[in-house]
């Protein structure tokens, strides 16, 4: 994907650009708000990564300008401010996701992937399907190779989220935020537990597992891996 990074910390930006490139993306960098806004308005980007505090023009105002101009490129806000209302403020300004420094690069990448998926036109589908795993969104029926699987409501939401982002890595914090609406960090591995429970239900007895753990990052629902 084509990423625009607006970040005034050039050292950090260099690493990020390198990371994006090595992950197979094309990335541009702007070091201040004005340049960033100009690039965002003229370039054709799939996703924008914008630092909140920037010289010349702050990050939130860039997003407001873009949204006022009817440009709905997904935006991920980077911030050194970790307070809850900052997150709310950022999302209210038109940001799509919010990440607080310090963050893990894998987390950033996973969230960008998720955003891009969100940016694509969503076909109204009643049915999500990966390999022989099927989820009917209307009846909430889950089948694996035609066999019915009983899931708890929360497991269903977890599976639905994973299926919407199939083929992508999703992190533990993403799951906590999206499936549970918790913006915190449990010390014990409660998410791992939830995942292994879900895995035991959908992958049990199947010849090819679908739900994979990506070490140090998160999980991926994928038929090829």
């Amino acid at each position: 994907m084509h990423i625009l990074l607006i970040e005034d910390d050039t050292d950090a930006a260099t690493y990020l650009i390198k990371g994006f490139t090595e992950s197979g993306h094309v990335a541009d960098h702007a070091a201040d708000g004005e340049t960033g806004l100009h690039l965002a308005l003229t370039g054709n980007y799939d996703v924008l990564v914008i630092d909140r505090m920037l010289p010349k023009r702050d990050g939130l105002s860039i997003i407001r300008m873009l949204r006022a101009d009817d440009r709905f490129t997904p935006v991920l806000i980077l911030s050194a401010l970790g307070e809850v209302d900052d997150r709310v403020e950022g999302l209210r300004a038109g940001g799509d996701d919010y990440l607080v420094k310090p963050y893990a690069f894998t987390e950033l990448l996973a969230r960008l992937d998720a955003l891009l998926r969100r940016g694509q036109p969503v076909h109204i589908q009643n049915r999500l399907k990966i390999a022989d795993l099927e989820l009917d969104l209307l009846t909430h029926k889950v089948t694996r190779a035609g066999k019915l699987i009983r899931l708890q409501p929360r497991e269903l939401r977890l599976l639905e989220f994973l299926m919407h982002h199939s083929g992508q890595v999703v992190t533990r914090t993403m799951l906590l935020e999206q499936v549970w609406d918790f913006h915190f960090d449990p010390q014990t591995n409660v998410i791992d537990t939830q995942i292994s429970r879900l895995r035991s239900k959908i992958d049990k007895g199947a010849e090819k597992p679908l739900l994979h753990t990506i070490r140090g990052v998160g999980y991926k629902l994928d038929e090829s891996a």
Partner: protein
Amino acid sequence: MNPRRLLHTTAMRLALRYALFYAVLIAMGLGLLYLSTNNYVDAYIAAGLEQEIRQLSKLDQEQGRQQLKAVIKAQSRVNNKSGRYYLLDEPHSLSKTGNLLGWPPQFKADGKVKNIWIEDNLISGHNDDQDGYWPVIAVTLTDGSRLLVAQGIRQSEDIQEFILATMAAILAVSVLLALIMGWRLGRNMLEHVDRINETAQKVTVGDFSKRIPLSGQDDEFDELSNHLNTMLNRIETLLSGMRQVSDNVAHDLRKPLARMRNRIEITLLENRKGDEYRHAMEETIHDMDELMRTFNALLEIAQAEAGSFRGEWDSVNLTDLLQELSELYLDQAEIQQQTFTSSIEPNLIIDGNRHLLAQTISNLLDNSFKYSKDTGSIHLKAKKIDNLIHVTVCDNGTGIPIEQHEKVLHRFVRLEEARSTSGNGLGLSLVKAVADLHKAQLTFDDNHPGLCVSIIFRL
């Protein structure tokens, strides 16, 4: 005490204002009194004159003219302490008897008291009376003679002067009293204010242990001083907390930083295989994640502890929140072969910040799971008792000795027994900060064995 300052005190200014106000009020009152007294004196004099002229007329009728003349002469001679003047004018014999030397011009003898101008030359010399409007009465006797009695005004002037002098004295005394009162009040207030000022100056210079001494009179100044002292206590606690935190942060972060530095340094000492580099870097990333977690926890605590919370504040459905958390931890318990049970009453709703509350309860559950080992049983309970909502997490783990209950709330504090487990010693600090933010009470109870931690929210 500087008199200029005293003059500028509120009390002194008030006193001056009141002194002026009362002076005017008293002057008005006394003025009325003066007028009515004057009227009374006038009436009294008039009555006296009427009575005298009646008696003299009667004397003239019953005992004859000679007797009347004798009396008038006698009265005129008595060095006239009453201040009365007499005149008997007998036109047929052209004789005038009395101590008034002439008939006042155009004064009619009609038996009514009038104020008539009496010239100096009518007044015989033996008195200090001066010309002026005198009350005078005159009658015509049976033979056409006229009899006149007048009252020298010296007496009524004396009375007037006495009244005026008294009034002036009362005024002076009341103004003086007001000033003395104002001065005393002002000085009293200045003493109080000076005590506060002195303390404020010392605190400003950096001595945060100074407190304002109380007068012990339990007055509004003591109340103010008490409030200021409470404020100073809070500031001192916050400051020492901050100092302690930055000390602890520096101390606690140095260890993992040193560890990371050493690891990388030692890895770079020799040429190693690719796997070894990878391993070292992965370990470092793991350590850094721990550091980030610590930082985030510190930030969160700071955010919750800040006097004016800036985050979201909504009505939070505790029942839903706790049920979602239970769901998460139920599976956790299964895997760790611990027992987790919960009893959560429906419709528990409080005002607060959902995220911080979730983090708080999760910290308590994490602790319970961590310190109650394999056979642990953990119970989450939420119920409403009167207007309080009790949220309690109990376990049968190692517990916290009662003398440590206060201590574990401080940042980075980890008990000896807990050193072997992972953790940063910030969990309960956050719980405490969030409880305080929600004006909730945090209590620890012994679960024999284990620990019950309750957060008690007020509705």
